C-alpha cells in the first residue's frame, strides 16, 4: 500500500509539471503578438509594459522564461506563494486573493458534494431495489427535471422562494464560518442545493445502474444464501461494491467544479474562483485567468490522487496490480 501511494504521488507530481508546461505554452508562447501586451491588461502605459517584461522575464528566451515561471510557482514571488504575480488591471497581488477565493469555492463545492452524495446514494439504492417501481420512475423524472434545469434559473428560483417570498433564509453574500457559524450555514445552504441537485440526479442514476449490476452478481446470491438480512445484503455487500467506481467520478467532478462554479457564485454573489475567472476573462486580466486555470488543473490532479488512494483502500485488488 505504501509503495502504491508513493508511486501515485510521484505520478501526480509529474502530471502537475506537465500542467505547468501546458499552461505556460498556452498563455505565453502560442498566442501571436507580444505576451507583455496581453498580461498588461487594457490600454497599458509603456511603463507598465516594461514592468511586465521585467516581472515575467520576457526578455529571455522561451526555455528560461518557462524555468522562471516554474521557479515563481514553486518558490513564490514578492506577492506571496504560489508566485502568480500581480494583476496589472486591478493592481492587486494574485496569491493572497487566490487563497481567499479558493477557500470560499472549496466550501461551496465540498458542501454541495456531501449533499449530493447524501441525496443521490439513497435514491439510487432504493431505485435499484425496485426497478421500474413508482419510486424508481418518480426519481428518474425528478432527476431529469434537475438535470435539465439551468443552474442560474434554479438559483434564482430558490432565492425568490426562500429569501424574497418566505423570508426563511438570508439572501446573497458570504459570511465566514469563524465570524458566525449560523449565518455561514444560512448563507451557504441555497448555493449548496443549487449546485448539488443537478449532481444528485446524475449520481442517483449512476448508483442505481451500479447497484443493478452488482445485485446480479454471484456473491450477492452467496450473501443471501448465508442467511443475511436483505438490509445487510444491500448496505454491506451490494452498496460497498457499487460505490467504489463512484469515487473516481466524485474526484473529477469536485476538481472541475473548483474552477467551474461560475454561475452559482455569480447568482449568490460569492467571491470565489468562478466569479474571479469570469471577471478576469471579461477584463482581459490574464494573470487571474492563468491563476485559476492552474489551480483547477492542479486540483483535479490532486483529487484524482486522493481517489486512487481511496480506491486502493476500498478495493484490495487494485493494490496488487
Amino acid at each position, binding site marked *: 500500500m505504501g509503495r502504491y501511494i508513493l508511486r501515485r504521488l510521484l505520478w501526480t507530481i509529474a502530471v502537475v509539471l506537465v500542467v505547468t508546461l501546458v499552461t505556460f505554452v498556452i498563455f505565453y508562447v502560442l498566442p501571436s503578438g507580444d505576451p507583455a501586451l496581453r498580461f498588461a491588461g487594457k490600454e497599458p502605459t509603456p511603463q507598465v509594459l516594461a514592468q511586465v517584461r521585467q516581472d515575467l522575464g520576457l526578455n529571455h528566451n522561451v526555455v528560461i522564461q518557462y524555468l522562471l515561471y516554474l521557479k515563481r510557482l514553486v518558490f513564490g514571488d514578492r506577492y506571496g506563494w504560489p508566485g502568480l504575480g500581480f494583476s496589472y488591471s486591478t493592481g492587486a497581488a494574485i496569491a493572497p486573493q487566490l487563497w481567499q477565493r479558493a477557500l470560499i469555492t472549496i466550501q461551496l463545492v465540498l458542501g454541495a458534494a456531501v449533499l449530493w452524495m447524501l441525496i443521490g446514494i439513497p435514491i439510487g439504492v432504493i431505485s435499484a431495489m425496485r426497478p421500474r417501481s413508482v419510486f424508481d420512475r418518480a426519481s428518474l423524472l425528478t432527476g431529469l427535471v434537475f438535470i435539465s434545469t439551468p443552474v442560474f434559473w434554479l438559483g434564482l428560483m430558490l432565492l425568490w422562494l426562500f429569501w424574497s417570498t418566505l423570508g426563511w433564509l438570508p439572501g446573497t453574500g458570504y459570511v465566514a464560518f469563524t465570524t458566525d457559524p449560523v449565518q455561514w450555514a444560512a448563507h451557504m445552504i441555497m448555493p449548496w442545493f443549487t449546485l448539488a441537485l443537478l449532481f444528485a440526479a446524475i449520481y442517483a442514476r449512476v448508483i442505481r445502474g451500479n447497484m443493478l449490476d452488482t445485485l446480479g452478481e454471484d456473491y450477492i446470491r452467496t450473501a443471501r444464501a*448465508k*442467511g443475511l438480512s436483505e438490509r445487510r445484503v444491500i448496505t454491506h455487500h451490494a452498496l460497498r461494491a457499487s460505490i467504489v467506481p463512484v469515487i473516481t467520478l466524485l474526484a473529477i467532478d469536485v476538481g472541475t467544479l473548483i474552477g467551474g462554479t461560475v454561475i452559482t457564485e455569480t447568482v449568490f454573489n460569492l467571491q470565489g474562483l468562478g466569479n474571479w475567472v469570469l471577471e478576469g476573462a471579461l477584463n482581459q486580466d490574464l494573470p487571474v485567468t492563468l491563476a485559476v486555470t492552474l489551480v483547477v488543473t492542479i486540483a483535479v490532479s490532486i483529487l484524482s490522487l486522493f481517489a486512487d488512494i481511496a480506491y486502493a483502500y476500498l478495493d*484490495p485488488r487494485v493494490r496488487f496490480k
Partner: protein
Amino acid sequence: MSPPLLEIRGLSVHFRTPDGVVRAVDGLSLTLERGHIVGVVGESGSGKSVTFLAAMQLLDYGRAEVRGEILLDGVDLLTASPREIRRIRGARVGMIFQDPMSALHPLFRIGDQISETVRAHRGIGRREAAARAVEALRQVGMPNPEERAHQYPHELSGGMRQRVMIAMALVLEPELLIADEPTTALDTTVEAQILEIIDEMKSRLGIGVVLVSHSLATVSDVADDVVVMYAGRAVERGPCTRVFSDPQHPYTWGLLDSIPTVDARRERLIPIPGSPPSLINPPAGCRFAARCRYRFDACMTDLPDLVERGHGHADACLLDPARRRDVRQHPVQAGLFASGMP
C-alpha cells in the same frame, strides 16, 4: 418414523418471460436421507440448479412461479416466511456454487466472510466468530488458516476459494449441504480433492448432501443415489451403483456413452445428437424423444412418468423394461426405429 431430511414433491418452477412461460422444472420429486449424498445430473437448462435455488427462495419472485413442496425435515421451505427462510439459510442449509471466484465477495477478507455467517445466526462476538472461521478453514484442509483468513479471494487459487465456500457453508454445521456444480470451474485434480472434502465433511457431520452436476462421472465418485434430469423432468432415479450398472433410460445411456475413459477398448465417444427442446412450449410426449435413437410412435404423444421398477430404481421411459438390454445393443433389430432419425 421421522421424515426424511429433504423431500421434494411435485416441484414445478415456471418463469414468465416475454417469449412465454418457461417450464424450467416440471413435476420433480426427490428424497434425501441424513448421511447420504444425492447426485442430481443433467445438462445446462435441465432445471437442476433452479430446483435448489427455489428451495432456498433465491429465485426472482417477480418472474418465477414455484409449485409443489420442498420439505426440510417435514417443514415446507416454499411457504416459509422471509424471516424463517433466512434463519434456515446458512444455519440449517449451506450452499456452495459453481464459480468460487464470483461467489465470494471480492472486497472482503475471507475470514470476515465466513464469520459473517456465524454472526448472522449466533449472537456471539467478533473475536469468537473469527476463531470459528479459522477453525472452519482448518476443517476443509486450508493450510495456514490463521493467515489465510486475512487474505482476499483474489489471493487464492480456484480450489482454495472453493474450500473457503465449503467452510462458509458448513461453519454452522447445517443439516443439509447443497453443492451446485462445485467442481465445474476447477481442474480435474482439484475436483477430486473438493469431492473428497465434501464426502469427508458429510461423514464427520452426518449431513445430507445434494450434489448438482452436469457430469455423471463426478457424481458417481461420491453419491449414494442419483437423479438424472432432462428438460426439467427426472428421467431416471436410483441408487448410484444400480444406475451405473444397469441404466434404464436412453438419455442415461447417452450420458454414460459420452464419458471419456482411459480404457482404450472404446475408440470414440458417442455424443447425444441434437440439443434439448425449448422449455417454452415443450413438445407433447417424452421430452427426450426427438433425440432418442430408440423412440417409437407412443413416445411422441405420451409423457412418461417415473415408474419404480424395484430396488428403488425408477425411470420415465416407455420402452418395455424386459427388452431394454437387447434394445440398447441393437436399436435397429429391435424394430423400434422410427423414420427420419438423425
